[in-house]
């Protein structure tokens, strides 16, 4: 019973209302579980998610994903209900190897940004080259949006789809920034 109460009581800071400036959907993501994994070797996998993919890429799918943010750092996202499972499988998958797996489900807030001009919108504050060659679907990196740090993940799709992850206390700023950026690119 406690488990149920715990799951349902999570209050996300941005709500779930979608904005659509310039045809780009800006949609706060629903509750997810996220973990920071730190380990120095890239062998094997964790709960079926691979560790040995190149730095600045994401593997898995929209529901279960692992983004390699640095040589020994991964950000992992799984559905809320799989949080315990992930921790359990990590314990066995990584047994005997020095590592750190820290639950940051509540630290991070996700915002999905989708639309033909999504890269243009993000480039209002993100200084990276988001072109097809430099940042194709499957890319993921920590970077900046205006004056906030974000993790930017590009997902596969017919039109550009991005996940912006930021820390909870920056979520209002990041969300407002994205909406303002939408107005800034105009209708053209």
């Amino acid at each position, binding site marked *: 019973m*406690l488990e149920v*109460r*715990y799951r349902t*009581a*999570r*209050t*996300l*800071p941005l709500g779930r209302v979608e904005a659509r400036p310039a045809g780009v959907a800006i949609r706060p993501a629903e*509750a997810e579980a996220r973990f*920071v994994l*730190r*380990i*120095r070797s890239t062998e094997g996998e964790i709960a079926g998610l691979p560790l040995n993919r190149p730095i600045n890429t994401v593997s898995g799918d929209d529901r279960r994903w692992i983004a390699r943010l640095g040589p*020994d750092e991964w950000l992992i996202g799984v559905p809320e209900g799989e949080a315990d499972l992930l921790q359990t499988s990590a314990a066995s998958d990584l047994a005997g190897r*020095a*590592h*750190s797996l*820290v*639950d*940051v*489900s*509540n*630290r991070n807030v996700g915002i999905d940004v989708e639309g033909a001009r999504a890269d*243009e919108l993000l*480039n*209002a*504050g*993100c*200084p*990276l*080259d988001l*072109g097809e060659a*430099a940042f194709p679907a499957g890319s993921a990196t920590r970077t900046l949006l*205006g*004056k*906030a740090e974000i993790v930017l993940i590009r997902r596969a799709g017919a039109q550009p789809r991005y996940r912006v992850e930021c*820390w*909870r*206390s*920056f979520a*209002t*700023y*990041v969300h*407002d*920034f994205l909406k*303002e*950026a939408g*107005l*800034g*690119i*105009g*209708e053209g």
Partner: protein
Amino acid sequence: MAQPFRLSRGGRIDRSRPIVFEFNGRPIHGYQGDTVASALIANGIHLVGRSFKYHRPRGILSHGPDEPSALLSVDRGPGRVDPNNRASVVEARAGLRTKSQNHWPSLEYDIGAVNDLLSPVFVAGFYYKTFMWPRKFWDRVYEPFIRAAAGLGKAPTQADPDRYANRHAHCDVLIVGAGPTGLAAALAAARTGKRVIIADEGPEPGGALLHDPKAEIDGRLASEWLAETLADLDARENVILLPRTTVFGYYNHNHVAMAERVTDHLPSAAGQAPRERLWQVRAGEVVLAGGAHERPLVFADNDRPGILLAESVRVFLNRYGVAPGNRLVVATSGASAYQVALDAKSAGLDVTLVDLRLETDCGPEVTRLRQAGVEVLTGHTVVGSKGRTRVSGLIVAPVESNGRCGARRVIACDCVGMSGGWTPAVHLFSQSRGKLRYDDGLDAFVPGTSAQAERSAGAAKGTYDLAACLNEGFAAGAAASGSSETHSFGASATLTGFQPVRVMPTDADPKKVRAFVDYQNDVTAKDIKLAVREGFQSIEHVKRYTTTGMATDQGKTSNMNALGIVAGQLDKALPAVGTTTFRPPYTPVTFGALVGPARHALFDPIRTTPIHGWAESHGATFENVALWRRAWYFPKAGEDLHAAVARECKAVREGVGIFDASTLGKIEVVGPDAAEFMNRMYVNPWAKLANGRCRYGLMLKEDGYILDDGVVARVSDECFHVTTTTGGAARVLGHMEDYLQTEWPDLQVFLTSTTEQWAVIALQGPKARNVIEPLVDGIDLSPDAFPHMAMRTGTICGVPTRLFRVSFTGELGFEINVPTDHALAVWEAIYAAGQPHGITPYGTETMHVLRAEKGYIIVGQETDGTVTPDDVGLAGMIAKTKVDFVGKRSLARPDVVATTGRKQLIGLMTEDPKLVLDEGAQIVADPNQPIPMRMLGHVTSSYWSPNCDRSIALALVADGRALMGKTLHITTPDGFTRATVSEPVFFDTKGERVNA
């Protein structure tokens, strides 16, 4: 509706779309496609401003961004008024209200023009030589007078309702300028499929082609070629063509800044679209094709309205379909102005051409013009002009073979087009730190050695022939995009070549001649010569002494003339005098564009905790702490800060208070070497700290001064839950990572920020245990099982918690760490459960008072980056047995081990218990000593203590611990007050309550 100077046909204006705007309250009729300047000229208006110093009547000199004189205030509606707009650049649109500047009472009759009579006194640098006596008069009389006279337009005073946008962009090839050169470059680069951005400051791409309707390219009219080229580029996905976009800054590593004007030209503010957009482009390669600027001729009274640059006359005729006058004299020292005369002639103007060059030095252009029926006077100089608010005649004279001037002749006219040759726009090249090279043949500085991945082409490097520009542009575009494609353009020939001229030869008394070099700053050739005479010989000195080239046009038309005059005066070659290093921006850029969306709430992130909304709805007042907004105090109706804090303080000590400590930084330190790492980073010992126990950690910088502090819990053998100060969170994590990665990569430790994973609810006061007891599962809260400075895991309200038994108040206390998304629910549950116990929410101010009553320091308040552990009485925290930790060596420095003189933390009890000292007040032993006084230290914290029923203060005082019981004197706003030195703990001095 009459536009008496509008030609009956021609130009790129849209005659089907008439518009009306205002100039000085008078309606001005024009067409879509006009600039304010072209519409004014169409209506016969040339007088548009008064000069900066002498208030001389000034007109429109140019058709472009180099315009120095025609600066207008433009009003686009409420809050949308700004000064110093170049009439030649502002696109005319319905509803604009424009005004001339720098005159009183009116443009036509300006009292300030009296300065013109005083011009013999107001020479370059005159203010350095006077206004010094009497001394007081500088601040009260002279300077206010100078200031009132200075400045051009009036600054906006209202907040700006417009929006500004920012865009980072990347491309393989960035092309600056969409004239023939830039477009040819774009064609070449675009075909490779590489990403191309081409930007042009004008509203319409085409550059010089827009006013050259008779030119031909590859066998068709230039206008047709232009349309085809634009259609070609437009059809390509890989090309972004940006009109109205000025490339203004060339920074490191091909970072190029551009300002796009998005809506100013639109008839009405376009909904929510931004006014301007800053583009920050990172380009693989840059092609600079920004063209060239024409030089004015320097002769007496060369500044009368109606005197324009020659090419600008042609632009007004051909592009805008307006005649700058009926009777035109073209004065030149080069060939390009002959085309102006030809076009003017065919537009129906009376034209005379005066050329300084000897007939033998001229090309076929002379014959061509004469064949067209225009009088051409070669070997003639211009010695002056006639007129007042409009030129009425040009005074010319032949130059004899001995260099003297022959008989003067006045050519009646209402318009002059002058050309002293051309200056390539090397601004961006110079900004890129490329090295300029002086080209004698071109009489100009041209791009020399590149410093970044860029190349110049066309007029920007001194190539003026149309076919050559196209070929150079194409080659540059191909090279920049790695293409080997070549193309040889055919185009009609261009008249090029000029004879350099600094000051036109004259027969007048040089002391009386006022020939302007810098129009806007009213700098004459005479001023420049004076500066050189006074020993200012570097061009930078001359610029600064005379202010030439320092006006809003940044000397685009004047720099080469000024440089030439200095070189002539010093009898040196031009490059020996030096040239200016160009700096951004190329043309002025609004602050708004540079700020972009970073205004208001987006200026800096406002970080809030999950309890923020609750605090707001419970009436909290907030304070800014670093980026966070924290609840400061919770006033009830009628309470001020002091009343609320007094109530909150009492409530905590007598019952229970609840405080949002979520902003504390948190770091999860994990790994086999975690304890060893902690040992190296903190002064304290960690190896023996038991799991489930906490320790107050103190961290130093390598210089021995306190960096941060916070409670650390050992979660397990290989895991520490570290807390930091609110403002120190990022700093501490960075500090730890630095040492971990760079000094001790052998340590197996991983750091993860959990500041925002855990919200922290501090529950403090004797009844704290009673409140949470019913809510907690899995933790034995009894004092024996869960002592002070312990940490347990379990659940509270069904939510997993790391429950700390710690206290920053000296009371029994808990810091309840729960996952952030659950914090509000838990907070509300605790608040509800606490009602029977009188639970009281408190803010940061009460937190400060309570900890001060106990003498607990706050890093950043008791410490200021120059304080050691011993200074604040925390030497006992330092592990005695550790050989090393960060900062340890510095604690052995002579100044730190000095036996006297260190400032030490003490308490202060004012003799008047009601008096609360000012934080920051200074402390002396003898208030009657002469100034400068010897200060012993300062008050770091000071409050009214409701629990002590008196004021209390903490202070850092030299050798303070030896002064217990002594009286010191503390500054107050009115003088001094007395206080007694005490131990820095005021309440529960034995520290018993925390163990309750």
